[in-house]
């Protein structure tokens, strides 16, 4: 087959580069697309699960989607965490097919697949019912509630709380991206005081370590990382946190 002339090839070569997205394009579209695909999955789940488990289950799954997406947003571990988001969606799909699935079971499965330590079975219930003030430092976990009993629990503000927590965490993340680690740390500490364990405790802890490293508060960062590794030994955020803090060849 006849090849292109040198002139035509030179034109192609000269124009080969310059069409790639900028980092801003990547960031903007990632958020939009992940949200759009998650919404699609969540809608599908809601439709499937609606008759079986009622609104509470739908809310829980929505919360899980937000949480899993937030993982991706928080420390930018996009590839790994987005895979996790996908797995999380898959789990919720699977669970939705089971008309007897319990909300806390879904949370447990999703978190386990996400590489976290299995949370207490009441974790999601607590997260959804999280008060605006720090919870008591010690409280006995209530027994898991069956799905049929989940609806009467007081959850009217759960989505709002999670959304607020997500927004707050995003603000801290933006400060980190802007290289304002001091402000990020200040925001994160305020959020820890406000939300306590909260639904995004894991992500907040990761962001806090990165902020400490950025501030070169090495000793505190090491201790925080050690606690993080102990609490979340299989965390998908761990490699990202370590990469952000470790300086090879130093």
């Amino acid at each position, binding site marked *: *087959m*006849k*090849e*292109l*002339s040198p*002139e*035509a*090839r030179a*034109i*192609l070569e*000269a*124009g*080969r*580069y*310059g*069409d*790639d*997205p*900028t*980092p801003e*394009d*990547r960031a*903007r*579209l*990632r958020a*939009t*697309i*992940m949200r*759009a*695909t998650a919404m*699609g999955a969540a809608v599908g789940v809601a439709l499937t699960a609606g008759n079986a488990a009622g609104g509470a289950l739908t809310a829980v799954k929505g919360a899980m989607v937000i949480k899993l997406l937030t993982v991706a947003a928080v420390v930018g571990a*996009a*590839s*790994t*965490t*987005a*895979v*996790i*988001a*996908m*797995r999380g969606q898959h789990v919720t799909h699977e669970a939705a097919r089971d008309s007897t699935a319990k909300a806390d079971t879904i949370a447990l499965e999703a978190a386990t697949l996400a590489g976290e330590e299995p949370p207490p079975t009441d974790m999601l219930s607590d997260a959804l019912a999280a008060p605006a003030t720090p919870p008591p430092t010690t409280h006995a976990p209530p027994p898991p509630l069956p799905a049929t009993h989940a609806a009467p629990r007081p959850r009217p503000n759960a989505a709002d709380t999670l959304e607020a927590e997500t927004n707050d965490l995003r603000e801290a993340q933006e400060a980190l991206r802007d290289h304002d680690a001091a402000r990020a740390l200040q925001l994160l500490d305020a959020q820890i005081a406000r939300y306590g364990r909260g639904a995004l405790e894991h992500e907040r802890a990761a962001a806090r370590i990165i902020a400490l*490293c950025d501030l*070169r508060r*090495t000793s505190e*960062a*090491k201790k925080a*990382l050690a606690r993080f590794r102990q609490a979340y030994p299989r965390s998908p955020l*761990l*490699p*990202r946190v*370590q*990469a952000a*803090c*470790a*300086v*090879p*060849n*130093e």
Partner: protein
Amino acid sequence: MTWSAETAKTVDAPEPPPTAQPDELLFAHVYEQHFDFVWRNLRRLGVPDAHIDDATQDVFLVVHRKLSEFAGRSSVRTWVFGILFRVAADHRRALRRKRGDAQSRAGDIDVQLLADERNQTPHDRFVQREAVDFLHRLLDSLEDEQRAMLVMIELEQLSVPEAAQALGLRLNTAYARLRAARQAFERAVKRARSQSPGGMP
């Protein structure tokens, strides 16, 4: 930063990206691996800048919906190109209906979009932008399939069998389209040269 080598040694190395076939089929991995590919080729296939976000989102929504049906008969890249080719055609068609004529993306480009991570100087960016604009104008003169063949084979270095799979063509037909695409491109270059006797970008 005094985060020491000692610490660096004690922490595990970041996990490599998943490469196994099952992971490749996961949407997020496909997204991460192919986002730039989708973005730049939508532009090369004539989607105006103002529509790139929407078109990119459309591509990945289709990928998300169809991923479970992907049978692995082609590479993921080839499969994704087939999707983006159709999405680009849809967007161009919609624009033609809306504006009454084919919309060239040349002139829509915000120079800032070309400011990338390569730390080019403003002059470099200008020259690059000129070259990209010029190439896009030439590509605009080709038929859709010819344009896609040229983009896949000459710019993305896919093989002809891969390009045939992406467009759902028989191999012989793909070779014929590539031949026609190259001829059409050469004609476009000649036309441009005749219209710009002072020299092309």
